[in-house]
């Protein structure tokens, strides 16, 4: 027990040993038991984009592309693609041997229907990106052309299954998408076919015999089990009923114990596309947070290394700035806000901080976040900033952030592989609007930053974007609109008999087509 931190370190080193075992040849067959938490509302991934829906349906539906752990696009339903010189015309060539689970062939008509009709109506996040798309056409059965209005940097990153899943035109065309009974029996092109859903108990999918990738999938069937209680999920894994615990399905403090079990492997890969980024909201509108030096002092006062080790079992990485180091355009040369209480005190003295106490509102997402608030409260009190802890529930927390009725609070957001999709939204002044806890809640407004984000989204090619994002990162790190905490990692824990589990940037969401079980 006293070697807890050491255990965590050892656990982090474990995946390496698992990779070594993988030298063996993949074997076919076997049943995989996975936890899904919470139970998804539906498996129709084109309409529901909740995390649990994506986690199951990502193995039934597919997008045109897949992304490796460096977020580089890989072929899936499209075998190749190219863009014009200026980055405004993108042509995709589809695989020709793909069939839907009901036997009908998959063609370019399905792609045009899925993106232009279906998803444009049902997926608000994709709809915003499709604003840049002028037309989507299908010159022949296996070619699709996207004509953009202007270059849009994140475009090639939009083709992931959860963002742009392909849905069957022959089932949905001319129907009301949301009430179509076919939503209960999903038909995709993926490696697994939906079989049965016992509500409250399990979801069952079986091997797609006609899958378009030769030799895949290896597994015969998958059960996603619904187990509502975190402690029971841990026990189910311990007793061997469950083979895979996706990230976030057990409490943090259980991780060292579970990874310490014999034949238990762990990896924190497979979250690169999402790259959850945690920060401290700082309400820039009110004194003393309105003073830049106060915000910088907060950065110096926080012992983020301690929080990472004590609360996250050593998983995660200290966030240097607004962009996750796991995604594109992260600037390596950003200055560090190391833990330095003395410097924090100097800054507070320089600004003449009068000791006005500030309110600290923890995120009501469970124990880790509550403890984190307590740690930061202590850090701040040690440099002379007194805080009043505000107790609230999820609804109250949403409400207070949306109404800007807070001083300091917590949050974490997904980055979706590109700053134009997942980063700029929290800093541009256009996004200052009451009513949402997910926009520019801190009230930071800087014309220069607005302009840089705007230019960077449509600049071409990537090297030009990188230059603009570098400038924006430097500016933001200097201004500290929010207090960046950690690049979160949600380790996936699994039985070592499962091989090649995490194979893409969305991890377990599309993992099982390539995974295999040692027989």
């Amino acid at each position, binding site marked *: 027990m006293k070697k807890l931190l050491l255990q965590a370190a050892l656990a982090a080193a474990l995946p390496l040993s698992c990779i070594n075992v993988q030298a063996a040849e993949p074997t076919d067959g076997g049943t995989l038991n996975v936890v899904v938490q919470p139970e998804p509302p539906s498996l129709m991934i084109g309409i529901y984009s909740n995390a649990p829906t994506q986690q199951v349906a990502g193995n039934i539906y597919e997008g045109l592309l897949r992304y490796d752990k460096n977020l580089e696009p890989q072929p899936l339903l499209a075998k190749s693609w190219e863009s014009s010189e200026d980055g405004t015309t993108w042509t995709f060539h589809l695989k020709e041997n793909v069939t839907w689970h009901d036997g009908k062939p998959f063609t370019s008509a399905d792609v045009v229907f899925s993106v232009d009709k279906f998803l444009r109506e049902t997926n608000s996040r994709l709809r915003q990106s499709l604003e840049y798309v002028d037309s989507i056409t299908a010159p022949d059965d296996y070619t699709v052309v996207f004509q953009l209005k202007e270059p849009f940097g994140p475009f090639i990153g939009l083709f992931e299954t959860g963002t742009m899943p392909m849905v069957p035109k022959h089932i949905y065309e001319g129907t009301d998408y949301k009430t179509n009974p076919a939503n209960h029996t999903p038909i995709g092109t993926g490696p697994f076919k939906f079989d049965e859903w016992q509500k409250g108990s399990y979801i069952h999918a079986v091997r797609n015999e006609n899958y378009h990738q030769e030799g895949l999938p290896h597994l015969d069937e998958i059960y996603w089990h619904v187990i509502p209680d975190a402690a029971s999920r841990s026990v189910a894994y311990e007793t061997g009923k469950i083979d895979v615990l996706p990230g976030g399905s057990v409490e943090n403090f259980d991780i060292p*114990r579970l990874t310490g079990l014999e034949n238990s492997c762990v990896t924190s890969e497979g979250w690169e596309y999402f790259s959850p980024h945690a920060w401290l909201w700082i309400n820039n509108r009110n004194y003393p947070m309105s003073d830049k030096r106060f915000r910088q002092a907060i950065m110096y006062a926080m012992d983020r290394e*301690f929080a990472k080790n004590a609360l996250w079992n050593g998983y995660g990485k200290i966030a240097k700035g607004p962009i996750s180091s796991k995604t594109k355009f992260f600037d390596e040369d950003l200055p560090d806000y190391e833990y330095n209480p003395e410097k924090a005190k100097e800054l507070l003295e320089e600004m003449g901080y009068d000791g006005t106490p500030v309110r600290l509102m923890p995120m009501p997402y469970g124990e880790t976040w509550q403890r984190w608030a307590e740690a930061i409260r202590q850090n701040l009190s040690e440099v002379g900033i007194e805080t009043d802890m505000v107790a609230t529930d999820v609804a109250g927390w949403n409400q207070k952030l949306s109404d800007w009725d807070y001083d300091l609070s917590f949050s974490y957001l997904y980055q979706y592989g590109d700053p134009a999709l997942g980063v700029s939204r929290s800093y541009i002044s256009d996004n200052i609007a009451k009513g949402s806890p997910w926009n520019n809640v801190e009230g930071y407004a800087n014309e220069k930053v607005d302009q840089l984000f705007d230019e960077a989204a449509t600049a071409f090619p990537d090297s030009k974007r990188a230059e603009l994002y570098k400038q924006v990162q430097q500016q933001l790190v200097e201004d500290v609109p929010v207090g960046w905490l950690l690049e979160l990692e949600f380790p996936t824990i699994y039985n070592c008999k499962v091989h090649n589990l995490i194979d893409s940037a969305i991890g377990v969401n599309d993992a099982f087509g390539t995974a295999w079980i040692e027989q």
Partner: protein
Amino acid sequence: MSILRKLSTNKVALFGLIVLVFLVLVAIFGPYLYETSPWKMVNRPFMPPMENTDLMLGTDTMGRDVLAGLVYGARISLLVGLISTLIALLIGVPLGATAGYFGGWIDEALMRFTEIFQTVPSFALAIVIVAIFEPSVYSITIAIALVSWPPVARLVRGEFLALRNQEYVLAARLNGQTNRNIILREILPNTLSPIIVMASLMVATAILLESALSFLGLGDPEIMSWGYMIGAARTVIRQAWWLSFFPGVAIAITVLALNLVGEGLNEALNPKLSGKRES
């Protein structure tokens, strides 16, 4: 002083009293003698007890001193227990006294009102009250007081019903004394002993209620309390038993001591029971 003397002959009650006095001293002077803040992260997390002589009871999930938590927690537990009991008495005694003394429709009305509170499970009601008024030491104290006064009211009413036709009360009434005087000067002093016994047990219940609320995460987030410590340690009980064990023992001992003292008071104040003991 005969009460104290009687109490001191009852060894069990005496033990309870000594423990209680000790706890009160810790609550009052502890934070001055033991200055480590219970929120300060003093060492690495999950340090077992006795490993470091400075940290006798080890550290918690965040490296905070468990002993400091116990010392500071004693204050809040006893304070909430005492004050909420006091408030409950201030509500329950006048209500019960009025109802019992006047009887008739006043009695009916007040008792129906009391029943409204009695029909709702007290812990559920406390949770609702605290949740509505955001958890703080004030809302918790008031919530506990609001759910614990009805038994007091009923007890006092019962006593008043029994005493109001006693000869000395009739004499006072013939004397022309005001109702207020009769209630406060004549009857109330004669009902004090059951009230005191009940109050001592109520303090124990209040401490348990406060711990239970904190355990559920409805404690005052500014204040370290025993219930909070157990609630925070509950999830790591398999890795770090000492985090929930010591605060648990503290609560058990405090409640036990209060019960022993209450029991002792009951025997000392009740002539029938104390007579039995002497014989």
